[in-house]
């Protein structure tokens, strides 16, 4: 219990750091802290595979990508923040979120959920257990996520098309503009001759 509380406090303070840090690199590093404390939480909950995946995938792969992007995009830039339209909204939002979070914590402490009395199923949390779940009863979720990832991949294509297609589109647009423009000009010419 004590360990969970310590890890939760670590995770929350790291995520507050992500939001409040001025430098994107600092934000990314705070995020690493958050991810690591979450991984430890998973370990305490006996979900070893999830903990390992969290460290390998998030802290290992995704954060490295993040850091690359951050260093490429913001190297040597000192960005000043724009003035806000509503002054003081951050403070108000912070106070409100602290109150809401406090209420949730109080509720969770005062009215805990039912405690699990059954022993953990065999292979809980390790690779075998996860694999049996994902390729057994929970296969439908895997399919849904696969389809979701397809749409994400398509989204990259739509929003950031290859240069060749961009050129084609630009040409098509010009052609349409020309075909639009021609009847109007002829009509204007006709009006001109008529008057």
């Amino acid at each position: 219990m004590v360990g969970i509380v310590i890890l939760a406090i670590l995770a929350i303070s790291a995520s507050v750091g992500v939001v409040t840090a001025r430098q994107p690199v600092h934000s990314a590093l705070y995020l690493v802290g958050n991810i690591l404390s979450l991984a430890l939480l998973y370990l305490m909950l006996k979900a070893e595979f999830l903990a390992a995946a969290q460290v390998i995938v998030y802290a290992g792969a995704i954060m490295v990508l993040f850091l690359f992007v951050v260093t490429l995009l913001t190297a040597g830039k000192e960005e000043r923040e724009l003035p806000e339209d509503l002054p003081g909204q951050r403070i108000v939002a912070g106070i409100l979120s602290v109150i809401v979070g406090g209420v949730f914590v109080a509720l969770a402490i005062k009215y805990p959920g039912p405690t699990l009395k059954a022993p953990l199923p065999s292979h809980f949390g390790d690779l075998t257990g996860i694999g049996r779940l994902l390729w057994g009863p929970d296969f439908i979720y895997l399919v849904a996520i696969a389809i979701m990832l397809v749409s994400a991949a398509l989204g990259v294509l739509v929003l950031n098309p290859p240069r060749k297609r961009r050129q084609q589109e630009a040409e098509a647009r010009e052609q349409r503009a020309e075909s639009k423009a021609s009847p109007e000009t002829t009509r204007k010419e006709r009006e001109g001759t008529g008057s």
Partner: protein
Amino acid sequence: MSASTALLPEYIVVVAVLVTMIAAMIRRPGGTVASWVALIGILGALWATIDLWTMHIHPAVFFNQSLTVDNYSLFVNVLVLIAASSTLLLGWTGEREHEEFPILVLIAALGMMSLGMVGNLIALFLGIEVLSLPLYVLSASHRTVLGGEAGLKYLLLGAFSSGILLFGLALVYGATGTMNFVDFASSVNVHSPLLAAGLMLTLVGLLFKLGIVPFHMWVPDVYEGSPMPVTNFMAFGTKVGAAVILLRLLAYGFYMSPQDWGPALGYLALLTMIVGNLLALPQNDLKRLFGYSGIGHAGFLLIGVAVHSVVGAKAMLFYLLPYGLAVIGAFAILTMMGTDKETVTISDLAGMARQKPWAAALFIVFMFSFAGIPLTGGFVGKLYLLQAALFAHQPGLAIGLVLGTFLGLGAYLRPLQAMFRTRQGESNMAGWNVNWSHVVVLVVAVVGTVGLGVYPTPVVHWVSQSANFFWLH
């Protein structure tokens, strides 16, 4: 009944997604093969749905209760497939619709269809995400300034609301110890404040998708910046998905404690009806107007959920159909008016009654259906909602409905008035672009709208069959 029979419509859509991808890969530039394949897939799924309906199936659960196939989910399938096919048809000729357009529409439709049948929390979250992710992309697909703003706004706010939803789902799971909707009610903690807090956060996430005040800020901006067919899809399909999952979650999981959520939803419905229609009044941009009117209609739909009765469920399910038909009809006309333009303003409509009398007449029909004038489907739908509110002894909701309808009438009459104004100077009907696909959508929409207003009996019958799940707790 095996899963492959009961889930045939969804399987057909999944196969259509894959085949459409291949078709998009091998097509000639400018060809419509991918759209044809997607359309055939949608029609096939529609056929499978109707076939299942005629088999009079008993409700069946699959995959550890994560999916339930019953008349309710089949009716939702029909609504979603109408929305998806109209979106495909409206985007048929747009040169700027990419070859990925039909694929993304199919994936979003799959998410909406799954929302009609989910029975546990994981499936709920995945359904919402499968619905949202393609729409984030689609709303920014024109790469204009407004489109970029729309896509980014939708993505950020949508991700935020998904986070709130996920937090809520986690709390619900923590309080009940189960993922299945049907087991919530039998959980020992049915009146626990922790469960109430989780339910509140879950509802916030779902109401965001539905566009309920005060979670409505994204709606007009996203509608304005998105391409016309995509706006049509969001106005119809997303509303269907969010409304039906709300009804299913509350009616399955929380029917023991309606006092926890009923009043809150009632007040939100009231607020949404008034605010949405009131804000629709001063809009000049027709897409923004439909955005605010969509907010108002979401408020009307929420009445059906808030009253927590089988009459309310029926009324909400029925209302989705005339609302959606009016949406696709109105957007068909807007698409015909301005295929090259990003949007259509009220002043663009000037002179339409004289120059395009048929289109103007159809537009009037759709606007009347939105406003709830008799002999259109919207009137019958509003009547049933009013009945539901009164049966539940909620006169406040009934008064709000009438008030919202009056405000909405003002908003819908402004474009109609503009149509009869004579236009000074050059005609703006030059960019008018009619394709067979637009005509198909228009015919379906107008036949449905007027048909529902004149002879709603068969649809009422189907709706009461599909709201039967209410008695099956």
